């Protein structure tokens, strides 16, 4: 049956090329659009996912990880004194204005870390010494943001909201969802760079004591007045969910991906249906001779699956090429194994759905019709 399916499909090479192109474009659109979405979502929860904190505490009612409400020292001590908290440290995430070498400005997201803190640190350090960020006025930035910040070397000096900043280290691949470059520094410098009041910050990172369930601890911390507390995974999901659902970003990417699937459906459906119509007499002859519907339907579904397989390989190649091209524009197309598996299943389902009209045609085919000229 595979042989028959393959030969029927490849008999008209032009039609097969069109079908393969349709599936390929569909696969590429799905992979690139969802890959871009995943890349953005990865950025949205980048800091949370790389932190080792069991629980994140922030000001009550904060919806967005990047724009969280400030909290004060009293809140920190209340958190630290809750039974089950082994260790707590403050963190500030706020926006600042980075003065460029040419006199212009660039908005940045300042990440202020507590001296001696261990629950969140810059990772993928490619130059400099991360320990130095706890020196006053020391910052670390990401090399992929070099074009925006117009700097690329350790030792360069700039100002953030008029306050001196010296680059003491470089990371690679730590990017924000807001597209404002992260600037890593210590807590006091961060307050200065973000025009934040003294003794204010917006996150307390908590390490649970051994044997303490982070979920239980988060629920207890959440009872504290004026504070919200979430486990690391919950915090991460909230950060992604906000940008995905509240801004329409998710809908935008998924709509384009859905359009890709529709394009594939229509193209493959049209090609398979035409092919079925062309071979209706032959299929009718086989039915007349006693071939079961199932045997003939397998030939049609196999054609759909062959189209899916070829389109998946070609579309996957196109998506890899697109990813490489987009990397140059600092766009992260995250092609995970799960995404590839889901896309492969989706493509197979899409092609099988596209064969539905052909299947119905064959099921309704009256074997006596072979005698009608």
């Amino acid at each position: 049956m595979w042989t028959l399916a393959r030969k029927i499909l490849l008999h008209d090479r032009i039609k097969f090329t069109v079908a393969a192109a349709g599936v390929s474009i569909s696969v590429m659109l799905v992979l690139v659009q969802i890959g871009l979405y995943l890349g953005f979502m990865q950025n949205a929860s980048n800091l949370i996912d790389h932190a080792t904190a069991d629980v994140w505490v922030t000001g009550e009612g904060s919806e967005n990880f990047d724009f969280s409400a400030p909290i004060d020292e009293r809140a920190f001590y209340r958190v630290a004194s809750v039974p089950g908290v082994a260790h707590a440290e403050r963190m500030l995430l706020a926006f600042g204005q980075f003065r460029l070498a040419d006199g212009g400005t660039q908005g940045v997201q300042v990440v202020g870390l507590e001296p001696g803190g261990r629950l969140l640190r810059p990772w993928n350090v490619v130059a400099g010494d991360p320990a130095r960020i706890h020196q006053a006025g020391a910052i670390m930035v990401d090399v992929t943001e070099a074009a925006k910040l117009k700097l690329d070397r350790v030792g360069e000096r700039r100002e953030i909201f008029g306050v001196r900043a010296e680059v003491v280290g470089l990371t690679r691949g730590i990017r924000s969802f807001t597209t404002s470059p992260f600037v890593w520094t210590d807590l006091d410098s961060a307050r200065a760079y973000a025009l934040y009041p003294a003794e204010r910050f917006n996150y307390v990172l908590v390490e649970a004591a051994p044997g303490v369930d982070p979920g239980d601890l988060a629920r207890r911390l959440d009872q504290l007045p004026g504070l919200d507390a979430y486990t690391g995974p919950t915090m991460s999901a909230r950060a992604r969910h906000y940008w995905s659902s509240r801004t329409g970003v998710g809908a935008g990417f998924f709509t384009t991906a859905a359009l890709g699937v529709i394009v594939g459906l229509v193209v493959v459906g049209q090609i398979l249906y035409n092919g079925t119509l062309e071979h209706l007499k032959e299929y009718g002859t086989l039915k007349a001779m006693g071939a079961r519907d199932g045997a003939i339907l397998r030939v049609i579904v196999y054609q759909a699956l062959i189209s899916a397989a070829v389109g998946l390989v070609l579309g996957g190649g196109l998506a890899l090429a697109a990813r490489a091209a987009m990397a140059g524009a600092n766009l992260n197309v995250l092609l995970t194994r799960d995404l590839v598996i889901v896309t492969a299943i989706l493509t197979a389902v899409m092609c099988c759905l596209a064969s539905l009209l052909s299947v119905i045609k064959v099921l309704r085919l009256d074997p006596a019709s072979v005698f009608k000229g």
Partner: protein
Amino acid sequence: MTERTPIASLAGVSKIYGAGETQVNALEGADLSVYPGEILLIEGPSGSGKTTLISILGLLMRPTSGDVFVRGQRVTGLAQRELPPIRAGTFGFIFQGFNLFPALTAEENVAIAIKMKDPRARDADAEARRLLTAVGLDNRMHHKPGDLSGGQKQRVAIARALGGDPPIIIGDEPTAALDTRTALGVMALLRELASIQGRAVVVVTHDPRLERFADRVARVEDGRVTAVDTIDHSRAA
């Protein structure tokens, strides 16, 4: 001939298409038996009911009334899903237009029919080669229909019809698209299938020249089998 047992027969078969003012009586009270080892021609003008007759005989269509028997079994009352296995084991079909897959070689066209008739068939390819050799196409097995003459295509179709070893071959004007010499060659092959292999061959035709290969001719007019004549070959000789 009358002492023999028919392999298939129609008893009082009628077929009505449509209803009311658009009703058409395509076949009315047709009685016809088909015997092993014979060639039975079905002759009649266009629209006379020949196609309906062989469609019902080949279990491709249900009669409105009357009974169809295959190997002595009344099959008229069987469920639709029970018919394909009976067709697969009983009938082979050949057509004016050959109905071969253009993408497949002669061998593949025959083998796929064998596999579709019986998914458990072992070594369908070898069986296809044997059948193609039997119809004189041993040197054309790997040719696609587009590379074969009309007569060769019809021989492939005959080999395909023989897949699964059916006792009855039904042909719908199988020689209409062929030149005289080729048509006679195809009929000679069908004659062998009947005389040597003992199969029943039923052929719908408009061509009276084919009567020389036939044992009997059934004449159909206005939906009725008006006559079934036995051909006296000794007189023709």
